[in-house]
């Protein structure tokens, strides 16, 4: 049953690592003074709730901006790798969360939906006993005590249920989601990648049905994902929804993260437990 904690840890950290690596070819365009929006200009509208690279550099005085950028650029993947391995798990998760927030809030104008999900998933890596299952910490410290993972699993499930409910609720109160126009508009947004055009379906009820299917899946997520009989069907529906978002809107990372969270909460915990000495 507790395998889900291992699945959650390696997939969230692995996801954050791949996501971070994906922007490396353009890293300077996002973060440096050669980028499209200079860090100090970007910083003007950042709140002081969490640190930014410019703010941190102001505190450290002697460290130059580019040096600090390089330190964070290297430290973040290292902390994520340690989290994957389960080495100093809690400390690695805390450092990963701090650096993720530092890096994303430093380019807050470039933030989008996936970043908030990554933050809370990394926060849960700090809180959940994710280092107690298949980790180097277990090997090195020889921890064998039983953990009660039920409160953590409940929290993850409840969080996802609230998130999906509000995602569906904000859609259903908008007329364009009820008549199919919203999906049509999303699919014709600039820069969203689609494997092929679905324009040939304009004359069919496809867009209206898809919009309603999305809203029903999201609004009733909290109910049907928590009833064992309906769970497999609802989970398939949610995974298909995210695959659609990936393939027809190009939000690959967003979709991948949501699929990971759903499988962590509603699929892996249902699998038969595996005995291991790790």
């Amino acid at each position, binding site marked *: 049953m507790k395998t889900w904690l291992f699945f959650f840890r390696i997939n969230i950290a692995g996801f954050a690592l791949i996501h971070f690596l994906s922007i490396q070819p353009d890293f300077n365009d996002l973060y440096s003074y050669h*980028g*499209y929006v200079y860090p100090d200009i970007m910083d003007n509208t950042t709140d002081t709730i969490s640190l930014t690279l410019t703010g941190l550099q102001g505190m450290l005085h002697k460290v130059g901006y580019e040096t600090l950028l390089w330190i964070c650029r290297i430290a973040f993947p290292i902390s994520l790798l340690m989290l994957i391995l389960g080495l100093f798990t809690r400390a690695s998760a805390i450092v990963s969360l701090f650096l993720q927030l530092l890096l994303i809030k430093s380019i807050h104008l470039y933030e989008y939906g996936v970043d908030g999900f990554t933050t809370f998933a990394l926060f849960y890596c700090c809180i959940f006993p994710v280092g107690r299952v298949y980790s180097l910490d277990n090997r090195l410290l020889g921890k064998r005590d039983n953990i009660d993972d039920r409160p953590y699993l409940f929290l993850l499930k*409840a969080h996802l249920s609230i998130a999906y409910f509000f*995602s569906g609720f904000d859609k259903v109160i908008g007329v*364009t989601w009820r008549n199919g126009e919203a999906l049509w508009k999303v699919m014709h947004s600039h*820069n969203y990648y689609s494997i092929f055009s679905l324009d040939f379906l304009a004359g069919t009820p496809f867009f209206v049905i898809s919009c309603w299917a999305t809203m029903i899946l999201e609004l009733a997520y909290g109910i049907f994902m928590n009833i064992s009989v309906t769970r497999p069907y609802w989970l398939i529906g949610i995974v298909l929804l995210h695959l659609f978002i990936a393939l027809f809107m190009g939000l690959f990372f967003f979709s991948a993260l949501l699929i990971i969270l759903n499988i962590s909460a509603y699929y892996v915990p249902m699998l038969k437990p595996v005995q291991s000495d790790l």
Partner: protein
Amino acid sequence: MKKRLLYGWIGFHLLFILLINSASSYTSYHDFHHQKANSQVVKGITKLMGKKFFRYYGRYTGAETGYGFFGINVRSNGMLIGECDGKELTADFKSYETSLRFFSMTNALTDDFIKPGDTSQVKNIMSEYNKLVFKNIAVTMFQKNGCQDSTISVSYNLLSYPSLAAVRADTPARYQLIKLITATYSLR
């Protein structure tokens, strides 16, 4: 005792997420319909969530995230196009993920070009800030493309595509770029 504390915190954490999202849904609904959001309950929640402790808590736990993605209405979007020496310039990136982030940024940045009307002081300051960012993007485009001219123009172009209803009524399904705002900067 430890378990009780854990469950207590879980209850608080979920309530926090619930309140943040309820207030956010209420506000975006009223914003979208240009209605005054005057619910005292929502005002109370917003005031409470604005307190420093809750702001720090929301930030470092990720609980401040709103989940109304693409909600109420899918916002319009467009492209930033520069022009220098008669050549069209765009912000090009090596990775798809970065271009997606840039796309999100230009959409957020240019919201006030699309929805003028709010003349509050905060909005005015943000508008001035957006112009500064706009200028910064223009300068970087200029430098990256080795532009030889002394001026660069950057325009925000709203991407227009016929609605589903219009396409069903035989309107040709074609993209159109509608130039909303152009700024010209002298760089030498």
